[in-house]
């Protein structure tokens, strides 16, 4: 055996470590480029390193024989996703955190100086506490409402749908072929002050009762907290319904029969068998609903009023209108971390091992 052969052989058997190293190095290169850790000539060097690493792994895969290819394959398959996340998630998050701790030399400046400006965070809390509160409260109420509406609907489709199952599911999903924005604006027409819904409530004398329930305000349905929550509920309903449907659909109807056979009434069978087995679906649905709803700004903008502003609207305003990137970044970071910690706590309490 020649020396060259034994060297390539050694690389071949360690190909998995080489693959892992190459993936990490190339991801790091992309973060460095995306987050502007390097500039000018140095960025060319990083780019060159990135290309060399990628070409190196490719050559190893082509020349290293079947064993090396087998060991490299998982990293090769991971790489597109990892590199995409490095460039479009890790690098922006890094930039966001950096800007959130920066100050602007003047109001109209486009540059930031990194100064460990933690006051951006205290300002975010001080000035936008209400908006944070709105975001979490509205999202939480909307999540509860989607469960209350979505669960029975999913239950009926899964257990009573019969041959109409797919048609019923289609009817739930079809509205979502239209743009999110258009559907939300459509609601502002439906709930408008002189719209048919308000007039109908007026005719049957429901206005008083609805005002007492804080659903209507001053004879108005649009531009109330209820309208914002209603919009969120409407827009995120399928994200709740579909996971619940999937978990209910999986339940063997013989389990319900068995519970009945073992002296359980229909209610007890539901409580002891169907409900616990569908919890993973409810859990997934609440995450899919709460997380985007908490950061939403479309519903509050079109269906709310200045007093129902959610944190998403404030962030949008700070970024695009006030041009105050440091505070906007601090707000985004706070939103991100508070959602992440809420979800972690929620998962610890309610999470099931079935939902990995």
């Amino acid at each position, binding site marked *: 055996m020649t020396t060259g052969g034994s060297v390539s052989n050694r690389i071949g058997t360690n190909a998995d470590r080489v693959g892992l190293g190459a993936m990490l190095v190339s991801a790091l290169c992309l973060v460095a480029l995306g987050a502007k850790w390097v500039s000018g000539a140095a960025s060319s060097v990083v780019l060159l390193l990135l290309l060399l690493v990628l070409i190196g792994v490719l050559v190893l895969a082509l020349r290293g024989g079947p064993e090396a290819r087998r060991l490299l394959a998982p990293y090769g398959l991971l790489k597109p996703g990892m590199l995409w996340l490095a460039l479009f998630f890790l690098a922006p998050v890094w930039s966001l955190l950096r800007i959130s701790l920066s100050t602007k030399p003047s109001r109209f400046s486009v540059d930031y100086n990194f100064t460990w400006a933690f006051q951006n965070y205290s300002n975010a809390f001080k000035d936008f506490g209400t908006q944070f509160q709105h975001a979490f409260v509205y999202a939480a109420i909307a999540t509860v409402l989607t469960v209350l509406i979505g669960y029975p609907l999913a239950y009926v489709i899964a257990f009573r749908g019969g041959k109409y199952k797919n048609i019923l599911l289609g009817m739930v999903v079809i509205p979502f072929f239209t743009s999110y924005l258009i559907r939300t604006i459509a609601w502002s027409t439906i709930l408008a002050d002189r719209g048919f819904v308000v007039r109908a409530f007026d005719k049957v004398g429901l206005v008083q009762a609805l005002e007492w329930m804080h659903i209507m305000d001053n004879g108005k349905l649009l531009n109330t907290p209820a309208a914002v929550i209603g919009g969120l509920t409407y827009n995120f309903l399928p994200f709740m319904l579909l996971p619940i449907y999937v978990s209910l659909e999986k339940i*063997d109807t*013989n*389990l319900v*029969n*068995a*519970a*009945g*056979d*073992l*002296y*359980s*009434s229909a209610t*007890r069978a539901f409580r*002891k*068998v169907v409900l*616990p*087995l569908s919890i993973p679906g409810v859990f997934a649905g609440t995450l899919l609903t709460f997380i985007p709803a908490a950061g939403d700004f479309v519903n509050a903008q079109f269906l709310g009023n200045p007093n129902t502003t959610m944190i998403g609207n404030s962030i949008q305003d700070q970024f695009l209108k006030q041009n105050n990137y440091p505070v906007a970044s601090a707000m985004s970071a706070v939103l991100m971390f508070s959602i992440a910690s809420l979800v972690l706590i929620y998962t610890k309490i309610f999470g099931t091992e079935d939902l990995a």
Partner: protein
Amino acid sequence: MGESANPKNVIELDHISKTYGDFVAVHDANFSIATGEFFAMLGPSGCGKTTTLKMIAGFEQPTSGRVMLDGVDVSSVPPYKRNVNTVFQQYALFPHMTVFDNVAFGPRSKKIDEKKIKTSVMEMLEIVRLAEFATRKPTQLSGGQQQRVALARALVNYPSALLLDEPLAALDLKLREAMQIELKRIQREVGISFIFVTHDQGEALTMSDRIAVMSQGHVEQIGTPEEIYRTPSSLFVAGFIGSANLLPGTVESSDGEDVVVKLRVGATVRASAKGAPFSVGDKVSVMLRPERIKPAATVEVQGRGIEGLLTDLVFQGATARLIVRLDDGTEMTCLADSSASMPQIAPGKRIAMTWESDCGYVLAGWPDKAGATTTDIDHIESTL
């Protein structure tokens, strides 16, 4: 009819029928099951046995007729108010509960004192030999163990009758045979009537006190395994239980118990009719069980043998299977003791098959295909 015809009967099916639109799933099933009896409902898929079981359990309501449980009409009583329990085909164990909680499900539904539940559940887990698995989840158990959990979960309620829907179908052969003996032992220990649905005739013969053979919604015959095997009431039962050689022919003469049948192949044989009123010229079939036929050089007693060409001889250990083609092409099988000397027997030779006087049994009608049921693949498939 009074509310209770016989106090010894746990279940009485009083002329029950079930139809779905035009399809008749069960037609006029009318029989009863005694306390402590191991009763099998046997038949090919689609024969109505599972529908009958579901009507006893309460998952289906009969279109007509009554289901009596302990002498009371329960036809319209929902399952959770009937004192019968079911072991489902795929066990239907609750996957999110431990073995203990699964077994305790029934008693807890009845709101029995938790202390009593604990003792009775552990007692039942002892009987099915799973006490040490109480804290496991069903997915951590093997198929046979899951089966026994399902059994314990049903038996812990001490129902009037236990209904088992193909309980062994999901197990492999060796385990299935062991579970047959285990089921029988458990049944004797608890003394509860078991009503057992199966398409496996071997299983039904091994375990049951009585068997109801069903076909296309009709109960063909009810009797002990021996009665059904020796004196089937129809060609269907004869072919479904065990293997049989069915030879079509016409009645030539009748003298009380026995009839003389002129077979379509040409030979004339004598067979028992058990007093059934056959008259000369009737189309009948003679049933010959393969294990009761012996190979010989020639037919020695007139009417108790037939000649043909030996086409195949398969050694099977304790027995040897002989396949003989009769003169008209009909194939017959014969199971011979492989240790007995079989002079001049080799494939390609002409041999005789002979039997004792009580072997041939006459049934009305002609079979779809003459000869051995075991060599007819379509026939075997139709019984699965």
